[in-house]
C-alpha cells in the first residue's frame, strides 16, 4: 500500500515535471535563439499601435512632472504638438523613434552589438553588448549612447546622452539632460515582442515611470527607406 502510494505520487511528480518541462520547452522553442543560447531578436518589427507614440504615458502611468516640465508639456499640448522635431525630419529620439506603427525597424544581432535599422529616415541605433561602459563625456545626441546586457532572456538596454530637443512622444512629454531610458526587450513569441520602457529623469519627473509597449513581427524581408526631405530656409 505504501509502496503503491509512493509509486503513485512518484508518477504524479513525474507527470507534473513532464508537463512543466514540456510547457517551458514549448515556450523556449517558440522563440529563436542565438548560438550562445540568448534569444534572437532579429527581424523587422513595428509597434502594435500608435498609442504610445501619441502619449507615452497612455495606459495609466502616473507621472509626477516637475513644474517646468508640466508647463512645457501644457504649452506643447496647447499647440497640438506643433514644432516637434519629427516635423523637420529630425529623429524622435529614444524611445520615440521606436513607437510609430508606420515606421518599422529591423534588429540585427551580433555577438558584441545589437544594431537597429530604421525605415524612418534610414537612421540606425547601435546598442553595445560587449560590456563597455558609457563614455565619460557623452555629448548630447539625438539618439544617445546605448549599452545592453542580458538579464536571463531579456535584453536590457540603457541609454543616456539624449539631447533635450527630443520629445518622449509626439504629444510632447519633455525630458532633461539627466534622462536615462531603460528598455527591456522581451521576445515573447516568434511574432510578438514586449518592451518595458522606463523613463528615469529626476529633473523632469519626480519618480521613474514605466510602460510596456508591444511590437509585432513584420512579415517582410525588405525594410525599405522613408525619405524625409527638409526645405532649407
Amino acid at each position, binding site marked *: 500500500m505504501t509502496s503503491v502510494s509512493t509509486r503513485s505520487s512518484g508518477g504524479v511528480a513525474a507527470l507534473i515535471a513532464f508537463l512543466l518541462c514540456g510547457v517551458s520547452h514549448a515556450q523556449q522553442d517558440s522563440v529563436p535563439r542565438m548560438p550562445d543560447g540568448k534569444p534572437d531578436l532579429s527581424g523587422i518589427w513595428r509597434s502594435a499601435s500608435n498609442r504610445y507614440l501619441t502619449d507615452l504615458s497612455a495606459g495609466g502611468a502616473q507621472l509626477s512632472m516637475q513644474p517646468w516640465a508640466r508647463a512645457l508639456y501644457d504649452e506643447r499640448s496647447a499647440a497640438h504638438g506643433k514644432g516637434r522635431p519629427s516635423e*523637420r*525630419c*529630425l*529623429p524622435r529620439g529614444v524611445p520615440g523613434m521606436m513607437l510609430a506603427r508606420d515606421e518599422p525597424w529591423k534588429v*540585427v544581432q*551580433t555577438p558584441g*552589438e545589437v*544594431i537597429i*535599422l*530604421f525605415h524612418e*529616415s*534610414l*537612421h*540606425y541605433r*547601435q546598442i553595445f553588448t560587449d560590456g*563597455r561602459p558609457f*563614455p565619460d*563625456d557623452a*555629448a548630447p*545626441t*539625438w*539618439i544617445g549612447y546605448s549599452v545592453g546586457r542580458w538579464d536571463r532572456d531579456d535584453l536590457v538596454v540603457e541609454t543616456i546622452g539624449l539631447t533635450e530637443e527630443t520629445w518622449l512622444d509626439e504629444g510632447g512629454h519633455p525630458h532633461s539632460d539627466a534622462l536615462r531610458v531603460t528598455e527591456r526587450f522581451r521576445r515573447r513569441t516568434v511574432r510578438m515582442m514586449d518592451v518595458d520602457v522606463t523613463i528615469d529623469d529626476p529633473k523632469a519627473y519626480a519618480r521613474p515611470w514605466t510602460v510596456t509597449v508591444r511590437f509585432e513581427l513584420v512579415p517582410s*524581408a*525588405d*525594410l*525599405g*527607406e522613408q*525619405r*524625409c*526631405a*527638409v*526645405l*532649407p*530656409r
Partner: protein
Amino acid sequence: MEARALCRVLALTCVLAAPASAQWLHVPQPGIPRTADGTPDLTAPAPRTADGKPDLAGIWRRPRGATPPSGPPDGLAAGIQVLFQPWAEAVYKTRGENGGKGMPSERCLPHGITKAFSVPEPFKIIETPGLILILHEEFNHHREIFTDGRRMPEHRAPTSFGYSRGTWDGNTLVVNTTGFVDEAWLDFRGHPATDALHMVERYRRRDFGHLEIQFTIDDPKAYRAPWGMTMTFDLLPETELIEHICENERDAARIEGGSTP
C-alpha cells in the same frame, strides 16, 4: 564661379563635418594585432570570419586629401573621361554652374553609395552571416548588403542606396546594386545617375588597416559607356562612430552667412 562652387561644397562639407572632428571616443579593442610598442599593426594580414572569408569589419575613413575628390572641378571623374548622354552632360554643366545648389543632401536626403563614401566622415562595416551592414556616420544613414543569395523583391520601391547583393570572388566582395531612385547625384560635383543605374563595387581589404573599393557605374540612360574609379580607406582602430544627424534646415542659414567673406 568655380571658386564659389568649391566654397559652397567646402562650406557644406565643413559645417557637416564639424561634430565629427570635435572629439574621438576611445574604445579598447582586445585581440587586434599590435606592433612591438603596442599600437595597432595596420599592416598585419586582414582578419577572416569563421567561414574563412575576409572580415571587412571596422571603422574606415578616406585618407586626408584622398583622390579622387568628390567636388569641383571633376568630382569622382578626376583624370578619367566620362562619356555622357547629351541630357546628362547638360545637367552636369548646370549643376557646376550653380555651385552644387539643389543636391539632395541639402534637404537631408541620403547621399547614395559613392557620394556617401566620398565624405571625410568615417563609416563602419559590420559583417554577419548572410548580411553586411554599412553604417555611415554622416547623416546616421545605414545600408544593407545581402550575402545570403536572395533575389531582389519584386515591386520594390526604389531607394537612394538601391538593393545590394554581395558574392565573394576569392578574397574580394563583389556587390551588385540596382533599384535606385532617379535623379541621383554620384558626387558633390553633380554627376547624375538614373533609375537604370547598375553599380558594381569590389571590396578588397588589403591588410588589417587598408580597404579599397573599386566602383563601376553602368547607367546607359546617363552615360554611353560604364566608368569608374577606386577609393581607398584607412582603418580607425579602437574608436566608435559619433552621431551626426543632418540638421540642414538650420545649417542652411549658417552656411549662407558663413561662406561670405
